[in-house]
């Protein structure tokens, strides 16, 4: 973690549900995590794990049907749940930067990227109009976009996916935020571009000591770029810990199963171990305490009754009544 300093972002025992026509979806339950200054935390999970739901909840951008039923989300001591929309708008973009999947969709196609960059700068900073352009070009240069003066006047469709994502990072980092949330920033990008984009994020995180939350479904990617990893399954945080430790000696059976089903680093197809079964229906009232119990090789009857959830404050933690033994 970050040398004993208090984490910048803490999520403490957060539960969230969606009211839908077909029932109440308990999308998040007792979720806890923390990100410190200059630390890159990977939030890893498959589809349906709740990682994106959590990301939007952090930013106050959840769907209208969503309700946070318990817990606290704190950014530098500010209670984000209690904050007004105005306060959140001020935070978003200035203190908290966001980078989303599919950068082309996030950019306005009929305005140049220079204009969009200037918009963000103007909104969050008192910069004189004549300085805006220079500042925007400087932001582009910081994300290694070649020939930034020419790109300033370019439209999103003229840029490649990788370059659009760099523009998004420039937009996100333009106000020097202290927290960066990146939701699957490289999905859909080429492998070589992916590596470059993530390297850029890492570089900025280290240089400005930005707390970074990287959300991804790609475990191998998280392993390469994150200091700590938080693993989610069906709305629960199942394990959190330093990357090296997590891969070498996972405690939660789901973490181990996820690692075993990843193709990276395997010698043959037979070594892949798919995870049996599927996600439980989160609308049900009678869900077991541990939502992995029906697919878990180490399941005990006690697992259905109760579960101690991962604490946001702990650097290393897991939520399992029958964890894998310490190696």
């Amino acid at each position, binding site marked *: 973690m970050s040398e004993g300093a208090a984490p910048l972002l803490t999520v403490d025992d957060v539960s969230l549900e969606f009211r839908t026509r077909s029932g109440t979806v308990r999308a998040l339950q007792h979720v806890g995590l923390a990100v410190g200054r200059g630390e890159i935390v990977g939030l890893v999970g498959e589809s349906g794990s709740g990682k994106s739901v959590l990301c939007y909840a952090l930013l106050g951008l959840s769907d209208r049907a969503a309700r946070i039923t318990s817990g606290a989300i704190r950014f530098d001591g500010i209670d984000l749940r209690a904050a007004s929309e105005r306060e959140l708008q001020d935070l978003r973009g200035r203190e908290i930067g966001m980078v989303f999947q599919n950068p082309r969709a996030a950019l306005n196609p009929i305005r140049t990227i220079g204009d969009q960059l200037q918009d963000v700068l103007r909104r969050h900073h008192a910069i004189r109009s004549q300085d805006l352009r220079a500042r925007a070009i400087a932001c582009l240069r910081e994300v290694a976009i070649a020939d930034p003066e020419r790109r300033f006047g370019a439209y999103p469709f003229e840029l490649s996916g990788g370059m659009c994502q760099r523009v998004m990072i420039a937009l996100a980092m333009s106000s020097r935020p202290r927290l960066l949330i990146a939701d699957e920033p490289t999905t859909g990008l080429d492998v070589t571009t992916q590596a470059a984009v993530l390297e850029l994020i890492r570089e900025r995180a280290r240089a400005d000591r930005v707390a970074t939350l990287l959300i991804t479904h790609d475990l191998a990617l998280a392993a390469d770029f994150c200091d700590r990893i938080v693993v989610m399954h069906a709305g629960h945080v199942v394990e959190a810990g330093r990357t090296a430790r997590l891969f070498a000696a996972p405690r939660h059976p789901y973490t181990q199963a996820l690692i075993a089903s990843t193709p990276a680093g395997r010698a043959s197809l037979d070594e892949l171990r798919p995870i049996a079964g599927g996600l439980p229906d989160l*609308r049900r009232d009678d869900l077991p305490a541990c939502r992995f119990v029906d697919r878990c090789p180490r399941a005990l009857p006690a697992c259905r009754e109760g579960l101690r959830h991962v604490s946001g404050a702990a650097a290393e933690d897991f939520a399992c009544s029958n964890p894998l033994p310490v190696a």
Partner: protein
Amino acid sequence: MNAVPAPASPAAAAAPRGGHLRYVLTENPVTLVAALLFAALVAVALLGPWLAPHDPLATAPERALQPPSGAHWFGTDALGRDILSRCIVAARLDLGLAVAAVALSFAVGATLGAAAGYFGGWPDRIVSRTADTIMAFPLFVLAMGIVAALGNTLANIVIATAIVNLPFYIRVARAEANVRREAGFVESARLAGNGEWGVLMRHVFPNLLPPIAVQVSLNMGWAILNAAGLSFIGLGVRPPTPEWGIMVAEGAQYIVSGEWWVALFPGAVLMVAVFSFNLLGDALRDLLDPRRRT
């Protein structure tokens, strides 16, 4: 912003068609109202002559222009005919005209539009220019012109209304086909051994139906108005045939002298009919779109 996550496990086995119908009707109360109105209209159209309390053609000069009463709920017109009975019987004619016109327009327009959108090239050019030509005219004037040219018969009202409506179907079908021609399932269909027309008719066309369904329903309302409008100015339907448009025309001259019911009731019935068709548009789309089956 972020969508609600999909239910973790897929929904239970596909419900039978009856189940889906019930779901669509109960989900939105407006749909139910529209469906009931529509059902009532269809019932009246089918059962017309038996429901009518009086003979719609029977004249009785001694009872002319009587206001609504117990014996004549909608009053009587200038020739002593019961307006309620005439309205009921007219439903059959008006709905019949509208259904025929819309069906014709839909069949021809949707096929042409789908082919134009799917194949592109010169089929597209020909069809689009034809549609543009039709749309260049004020549509009602065009309908009048067609009926006047072809002859003053009911069949020609249907044809005129159908022609005038073609561009709308062509455009919607063309746009939808254009979007879908590059879809993955179109390539799948080719891999499955479908020739180009097979792909178009078996895969692209059925998927166009939900968006067009809304169009169909709105059109029904418009087609009724069109037929009524043509009759109002004397084209198409001839007296003494009861038809809502003619009845409004006949009643218009009596409004000033205070016999408001002669024009109002046919007009109100016309309005309710058009209204219910418009409401039904959404319900039709829900019914036809398999993705709304849960």
